[in-house]
């Protein structure tokens, strides 16, 4: 690896740069003046050092750091296979597209097949369903857990239902006992969108280990970050092969960048109606994409992965503090409820404002935002009402009453590790002051 002495000197300087340039910035907080974000990247010199180390390779595309991350993250998530990609949205695209592969035989999804999902969520959980010519069937969600109403599943089922694709909302696992039983009974695929739920467990098992495929996001708001990044996880080699193909231009070849003839049969096979011996590097078995990441992104992820257990612990602790502080206001708020048998690694703290004669959701959101405490809606609210879905082909089970209620009355605040004790106290004090204004 070339001049390792010079490399070490550069990396030491990078660490020093972090200490001089970033460390103090990360600590500074003036209540009412500085923002309490709902999410953000948490890093130290390790991320910067890894990033520069990868850039010094100047390999640019997927390389040694991506391989290291895939192996380590697969172990963390208790899966055999992990394939990194350039975002959680791409991970969902890959997972759902994989279900359309001819390699799955008669089980494969084809245009017009239905996929059960929810509208109270993030658009890119649902978009790949539509993009693959499939039909999303939207089911309502429960208040408090914000997860799919399992009692509505049978109503969603039809002769065209082939899969269930749902997220563990804000880190709260959905009812996996019921869902897993439902997919098994009806021979359906299950994709767990774990983009907000890394480290959540159900019955002591990691989410992401119950379905055929799982997806994760490494956007800065998430549990760990690569800047932009995501991953697909699975335990089955056939899915790994299919996802890899879709990710890597749709090709049949599995050589890494910079390698040739990994299979040993580069010029000795015949595919489709191509001539015998056509270069395997240019044989395409799927209509795929290029959704790979750069090694520089993966390098940041490798450093982040070491901190993940601590991040999860802090998130749970921050959630508990908020819950203890806010449960006195339960006449006005629906506070989040962990799904039975689960231990969520919370992405955020959702609050639904009950109908009351003192304030609306917008009023408390404006109050918090004016106090520099950032808030967010539950993503798309009700996706069926978003302009993007105007004219899209989908089916709705019932009236999505709770979904609409969430759209109108729910917001969330952060629990990420950047909310240290003094910021947490500021949040709690701000809520107290809000209610004091009504003499509650």
């Amino acid at each position, binding site marked *: 690896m070339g001049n390792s002495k010079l490399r070490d000197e550069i990396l030491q300087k990078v660490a020093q740069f972090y200490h001089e340039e970033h460390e103090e910035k990360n600590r500074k907080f003036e209540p009412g003046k500085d923002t309490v974000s709902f999410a953000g990247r948490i890093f130290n010199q390790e991320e910067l050092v890894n990033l520069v180390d990868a850039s010094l*390779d100047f390999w640019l595309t997927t390389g*040694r750091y991506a391989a290291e991350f895939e*192996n380590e993250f697969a172990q963390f998530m208790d899966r055999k296979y992990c394939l990194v990609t350039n975002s959680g949205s791409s991970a969902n695209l890959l997972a759902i597209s994989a279900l359309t592969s001819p390699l799955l035989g008669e089980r494969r999804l084809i245009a017009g097949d239905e996929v059960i999902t929810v509208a109270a969520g993030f658009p890119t959980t649902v978009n790949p369903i539509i993009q693959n010519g499939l039909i999303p069937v939207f089911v309502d969600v429960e208040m408090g857990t914000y997860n799919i109403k399992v009692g509505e599943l049978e109503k969603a089922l039809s002769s065209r239902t082939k899969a269930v694709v749902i997220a563990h909302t804000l880190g709260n696992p959905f009812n996996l006992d019921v869902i897993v039983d439902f997919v098994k009974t009806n021979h359906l695929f299950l994709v767990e969108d774990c983009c907000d739920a890394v480290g959540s467990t159900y019955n002591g098992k990691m989410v992401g280990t119950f379905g055929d495929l799982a997806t994760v996001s490494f956007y800065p708001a998430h549990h760990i970050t690569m800047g932009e990044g995501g991953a697909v996880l699975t335990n089955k080699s056939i899915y790994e092969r299919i996802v890899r193909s879709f990710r890597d231009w749709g090709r049949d070849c*599995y050589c890494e960048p*910079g*390698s040739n003839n*990994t*299979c040993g*049969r580069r010029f000795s096979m015949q595919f489709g109606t191509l001539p015998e011996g056509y270069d395997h590097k240019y044989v395409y078995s799927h209509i795929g994409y290029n959704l790979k990441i750069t090694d520089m992104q993966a390098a940041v992820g490798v450093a982040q992965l070491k901190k993940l257990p601590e991040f999860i612990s802090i998130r749970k602790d921050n959630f508990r503090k908020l819950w203890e502080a806010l449960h006195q206001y339960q006449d006005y708020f629906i506070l989040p409820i962990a799904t039975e048998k689960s231990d969520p690694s919370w992405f955020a703290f959702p609050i639904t404002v009950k109908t009351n004669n003192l304030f609306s959701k917008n009023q408390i959101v404006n109050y918090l935002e004016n106090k520099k405490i950032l808030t967010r809606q539950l993503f798309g609210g009700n996706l069926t009402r978003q302009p993007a879905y105007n004219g899209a082909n989908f089916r709705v089970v019932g009236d999505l009453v709770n979904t609409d209620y969430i759209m109108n009355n729910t917001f969330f605040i952060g629990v990420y590790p950047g909310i240290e004790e003094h910021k947490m106290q500021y949040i709690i004090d701000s809520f107290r002051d809000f209610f004091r204004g009504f003499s509650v």
Partner: protein
Amino acid sequence: MSGTTIATVTKIVSYTDTIRCYTLRLDKMYRFLAGQFVQLTLELVSGSDYWPESRTYSIGFFDVHEKTIELIIKNQGIYSNRIFNELALGSTCTLKYPYGDFTLPEDDDFDDIVCIAGGTGISPFFSFILELQSRSLLHKMRLFYSVKCVNDIIRYEFLHKYLGERMKLFTTRENSALSYHRRIEICDVVDESNEHKITHFYISGSHDFIEFFVQKLSIAGVKNIHYDFWK
């Protein structure tokens, strides 16, 4: 989901003048499936370098705790000759692994497995034995192993210990009490019942060896034929 690692030679066993078993200790032990293979290069490279000339070898015996794998290498060309000359005890090389689809069924509810090995093609079946043993499914495996002479048999004691009567040896050029003095014939591996049609057959050996059995098994109506070969 492959990775690159430096590997150090910790043991070399010569079975014949042209067949050796190299034990390699890996800096990084990635998860792999029984039956998969590695790319071995004599150069020291990282996962962010252009991959140099290399050769493909099945993972044979392995020990996850010791972080070692065994590769059976036959000296039959320029590069394997370099391996024989340059890869000594204590020396290092680079591996990239794991690859390949020559793997056992992932669910446990499969029927019997029949493994047909020619010469150094026995290598992936060592990893099969270890994997099936760990899943308490070794009783489902039968092995038909053909070599030229008794001295060519690799790890006989290990095979006999784990497979016993479920292994049949064939020596094509030598008469021996341990083996049948002939080639493996199709009637050895398929029986008169139709159960062979759903059995998983794994064939490992030279290109001609594989082609012979693929053709014969296909004619016999076998659905699950697995093979992997490289040039």
